[in-house]
């Protein structure tokens, strides 16, 4: 796809903002019950706990007076959770048992690293696809029409460049992945897109790294803000006629005060404040986004691919899991 920069328009006039109504105390209540049930079930409740948290956060995210809905279930995630644990667990045990025996150890270690390398793209692709296709707003499901085969090709082609360049290519790698995931994400009949360049991200990382080191990490929140804004400001909505950019209003000062106060909040409450910290962070992130007006909120149409099991990509289906990063 040839992209000319003039095609993008910055939002003007009526801006749509996200209203996040989450409350630390409600979130805390959910997290505590999740923790109790997870302990009682020796960890098996975890996927359901995760579904609860997502349902809650999605429910508190309001756009134009309507809230997001998370349609995923604990059962779906449980399947992925078990598969992922079985694969990694058996490889790990294999490595552990054969360490002393050079004959088999080599193969197991090889299989272990291959497993990890193979699971990474599956996890990135699966997690994004899962979240997107399980999100709906006003009854319209978000859709995803990327093929795993294509993603895998893109992933390994770029990974090779990362290896050859000793990691310097990493920002470009990230941008390529973001582009793929965004360009295959549908909101009704609209398509998301991403126009960021690896070079810009490289400079953000370089500056962020240097300044963070010089300022004894005081610069870290500002660096993170730059990365967040890089993602938001380069994302766009393509409605078939126009491409309009999202815009972030997040400032360094705001990011700094929220992140530093969150850190103190968590430390001084011995971790109990994490619920309030999560809510404050999510609010900061969501409420700084301006959604472009070419997304016609009242006339989104349910896309064919929007329905949940239409992609038919079985390989990924078994790993349709919400792995977090």
């Amino acid at each position, binding site marked *: 796809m040839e992209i000319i920069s003039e095609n993008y328009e910055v939002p003007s006039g009526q801006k749509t903002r996200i209203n996040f109504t989450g409350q630390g105390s409600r979130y805390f209540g959910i997290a505590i019950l999740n923790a109790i049930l997870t302990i009682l079930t020796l960890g098996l409740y975890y996927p359901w706990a995760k579904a609860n948290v997502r349902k809650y956060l999605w*429910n508190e995210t309001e756009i134009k007076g309507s809230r997001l809905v998370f349609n995923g279930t604990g059962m779906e995630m449980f399947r992925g959770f078990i598969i992922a644990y079985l694969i990694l667990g058996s490889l790990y045990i294999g490595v552990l048992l054969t360490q002393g025996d050079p004959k088999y150890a080599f193969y197991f270690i090889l299989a272990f690293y291959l497993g990890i390398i193979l699971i990474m793209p599956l996890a990135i692709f699966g997690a994004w696809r899962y979240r997107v296709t399980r999100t709906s707003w006003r009854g319209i499901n978000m859709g995803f029409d990327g093929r795993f085969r294509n993603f895998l090709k893109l992933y390994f082609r770029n990974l090779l460049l990362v290896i050859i360049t000793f990691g310097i290519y990493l920002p470009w790698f990230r941008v390529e992945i973001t582009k793929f995931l965004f360009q295959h994400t549908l909101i009704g009949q609209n398509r998301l897109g991403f126009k960021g360049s690896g070079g810009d991200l490289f400079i953000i990382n370089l500056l962020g790294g240097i300044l963070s080191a010089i300022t004894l990490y005081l610069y870290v929140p500002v660096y993170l803000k730059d990365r967040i804004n890089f993602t938001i400001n380069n994302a766009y909505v393509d409605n078939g006629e126009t491409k309009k950019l999202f815009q972030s209003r997040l400032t360094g000062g705001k990011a700094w005060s929220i992140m530093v106060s969150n850190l103190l909040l968590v430390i001084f409450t011995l971790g109990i404040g994490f619920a309030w910290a999560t809510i404050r962070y999510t609010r900061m992130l969501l409420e700084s986004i301006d959604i472009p007006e070419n997304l016609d909120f009242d006339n989104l149409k349910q896309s064919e691919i929007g329905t949940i099991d239409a992609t038919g990509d079985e390989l990924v289906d078994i790993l349709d899991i919400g792995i977090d990063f």
Partner: protein
Amino acid sequence: MKFKAKYFDGKTSQPKEVWLKVIEDFELQLFTEEYSIVPFERWELLQLKNESFNSSKDLQLSYISDGVRRSLEIENPNQELVNYLSNKHSKEDKIFAMVLKRNSYKVIGISVTVLAVMIFVYVKWVSVFVGNTIVSIIPLAVEETIGDNAFNQMNPFLDIDTPRTRLLQEFYNALDFNSEYQVSVYLDTNKRVNAFALPGGKLVVYDGLIKKTQSWQELAALFGHELSHVNDRHSMRLLSRELGNYAVFSAITGDMAGISSVIIESAISLNELVYSRTYEKEADLNGLDMLIENDIEPEAMLRLFERLLEENKEVEEILKDLELLSTHPLTDNRMDYIKDYIESKGLLGYLGKKNEKAEMLWKKIKEK
């Protein structure tokens, strides 16, 4: 009584204002106007799905008919509908609804307390039980493999004296201690006054410690102690418990902040120290039993610790102030309970049988 809601037909995001009426225990009727008589859709209450989860604002419902999911956003649901939905909740939702409905700090306070008690119970008893259960199903062969692997990894850093190791193995065999494991002993030329046991039966003794022993019985006491670690599978128990703790706590804190998991983990490792002191004591007493069973002078164990005390005087002084942090019971303390134990068996001053072979071998090992 009818009440207002926003309706979405599942094909477009176009909101439509509708009026709802609940027919008790049966269906939800949707009308286009407040005074319409004929509903344009009827939703079976049983098939209704509540999409809201503890959210602070309106209620969201969905209903699938003809393969299309329709949905409703209801700002002020009537009591009848709310009651119906709360009765229909699954058990799990009910627990959440019950606790979260009022959202009061009292409820949260109680939950926090319950959680704290559960974590305490878990760390104190459940994890011990889980660890022991895991250990009891791990076959000996697996344990030996893990021990062998650990030994192979350490090997480059060890300096094994092969001829004296052979003598030490003969010495160990002459003691005729009882173990399900195939025990191999190694002598390292290091000057440190120390020894350690690996799972599956590999025992490594440093020359520094051998040089300190004043009788073959003391060296036998050392083997008694180390062999008890192996027989009672202490390292495997610690390992499985740590794995269990890690799995549970990372599962709980997975979606939360990294910091709280760090705090919890450091609390666990503090606890781990106390556990390993329990294991040390267990090894001391079981080692004593082993001496007694084999008719070897039990007080040799006492003297062994005297040697250790001489060596570690300075360290011990510091540790005294930090008793909580030490992995081994303090030697003073240790000697007290060892003495008490021998006394309780009525064996103070008992010299045991002679073992000329062991004595001869011990002399040989020490002299070289």
